[in-house]
């Protein structure tokens, strides 16, 4: 869409002094043990404040969600025999329950809504193909918050500006691995060149699917043809995305922006037309 090109917000059209291969995360949820090392490593490296102590009573998940100060979030889907965690009781009884863990993160979308709608140019596409908030430019308008189709980015209470995963931009520029991937003890979080990660994920999916229990496994946001043009961060999931709190068919809202402005143009014309009619018709 021509509007995308105008800002260089897209991976394909942006230009850099020192171009790099697109970097990303492949999060293989089958390997996640729910240790939250990624959450802690992220907080520690990025010096993010705690969100306070809350007990959600939702399995081991007391983090709850990604927000301006929490950039990795481990989801726990706990489904036990008694069906406490919800789910189809018959299936669960037969299986004696199951655990799904998934470490969620910003998807670093190919078509990123947060970046598109940002009015200040604070959100940028880096040379690594990642999406980063320039904290010293952001004025805290909050537009990116409802724009993200994954509910990732948020306005921080502490300093008023938006915050989210940077894929450890500072570490990348030094050739280092992002903190979460470095800390992950099971290689559930894998970092690298996106092309390579995708190839690795394809092989892994085939292997996982060979197991009859996991025939529903799928790669989420791997590829270029979904509603966000693919994620720089993508996932191997064992169940439907919504089970993990992910949208099953996310679409970048700006895809329809041209259509929206056309409607707005008609509404503006209607406004002028009604005013003109009233001006002609009304007696003095």
């Amino acid at each position, binding site marked *: 869409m021509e*509007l995308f090109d105008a*800002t260089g917000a897209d991976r394909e059209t942006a230009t850099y002094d020192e171009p790099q291969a697109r970097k990303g995360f492949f999060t293989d949820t089958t390997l996640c043990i729910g240790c939250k090392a990624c959450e802690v490593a992220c907080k520690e490296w990025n010096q993010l404040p705690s969100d306070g102590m809350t007990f959600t009573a*939702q399995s081991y998940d007391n983090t*709850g*969600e990604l927000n301006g100060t929490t950039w990795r979030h481990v989801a726990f889907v706990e*489904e036990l025999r008694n069906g406490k965690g919800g*789910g*189809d009781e018959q299936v669960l009884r037969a299986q004696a329950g199951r655990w799904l863990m998934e470490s969620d993160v910003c998807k670093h979308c190919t078509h990123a*809504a947060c970046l598109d*709608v940002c*009015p*200040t*140019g604070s959100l940028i596409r880096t040379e690594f193909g990642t999406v980063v908030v320039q904290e010293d*430019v952001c*004025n*805290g*308008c*909050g537009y990116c*918050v*409802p*724009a*993200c*189709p*994954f*509910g990732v980015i*948020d306005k*921080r209470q502490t*300093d*008023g*500006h*938006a915050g989210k995963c940077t894929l450890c931009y500072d570490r990348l520029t030094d050739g280092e691995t992002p903190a979460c991937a470095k800390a992950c003890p099971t290689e559930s979080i894998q970092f690298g060149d996106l092309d390579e990660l995708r190839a690795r994920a394809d092989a892994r999916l085939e292997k996982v699917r060979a197991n009859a229990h996991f025939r*529903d496994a799928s790669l989420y946001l791997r590829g270029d043809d979904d509603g966000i043009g693919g994620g720089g961060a993508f996932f191997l999931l064992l169940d439907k995305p*919504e*089970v*993990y*709190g992910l*949208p*099953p*068919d*996310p679409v970048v*809202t700006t895809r*329809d*922006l041209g*259509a*929206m*402005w056309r*409607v*707005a143009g008609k*509404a*503006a*014309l209607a*406004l*002028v037309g*009604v*005013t*003109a009619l*009233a*001006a002609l018709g*009304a007696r*003095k």
Partner: protein
Amino acid sequence: MTAQANGAASASYYGRPVVKPHVWTPMIPWYFWIGGMAGAASVQCVAARVRGEHDLAVVYKRAALAGAMTAPVLLIADLGVPARFMNMLRVFKPTSPMSVGSWILSAFGAAVTASTLAELLGWERTSRALEVVTASFGPGLTVYTAVLIADTATPVWHEAYDTLPFLFAASGVGGAGAIGSAFAPADQTAFARRLMIAGAFGVPIVGHLMEKRLGRFMAEPYRTGKAGSFRRVAEFLSLAGGAIGLLGGKNRTALRGAAVCVAASGVFERFAVSAAGTQSAKDPKYVVQPQRERVDEREPASVDT
């Protein structure tokens, strides 16, 4: 192996939201109304000039100026880092309706301020020309806010992108008409009264059309909870204002009463839209269900048995 968590129609992660609700303070719905009114007032100002009703035109011009002065205050107060408000004009980004809108508002504000200054200096022709310039940004100012909220992942905003601009336009026309009706000299109210009535009936009509196009499921957030209450108040005020305006004729008291109703109804309507957005973002089913249907339609084989 489908986990239908908590027996809901669509699966979710402990019923937690998938997308984040907007984080705007009440300054923003207020701004939506004031900016919408000011934009429509600038157009009505030029129309009044054409009709030779100059006192009425001045009323509209003052309304546009007041709106243009108040708007930035509301917008800046809503920012997380207010000192950086000038960053709004750091770039011009066509992909960001807020960027486009900031420029429209700035141009509108500059034009109406310059026109008012020219008027005070007695430069009548310059002042009139600048009124036309102001009016050229007016419709944009009134409708861009609808694009702004539609351009999000908030289900009931995005899905309503084909009607929201008309809703905001109708409400803007009614709001400006109400100001004109309330403050114009007695012999120049006919035009403003018409527009006030048009807006008063236009808003509920467009609102119902919007609900119909959204369908029963997606319209729910507009009908229930806080949003539903706000809308019912807005609708009542709208119809009451419209009826009083129609039946009261040129009676000043009736006109002013109607104007208060119509203006207030516009404010409630904006707060309703804001609350509906929040409600639809907080309940994951409004995000998941339509997307799940799309996926299942595309690849029916993936439906579990």
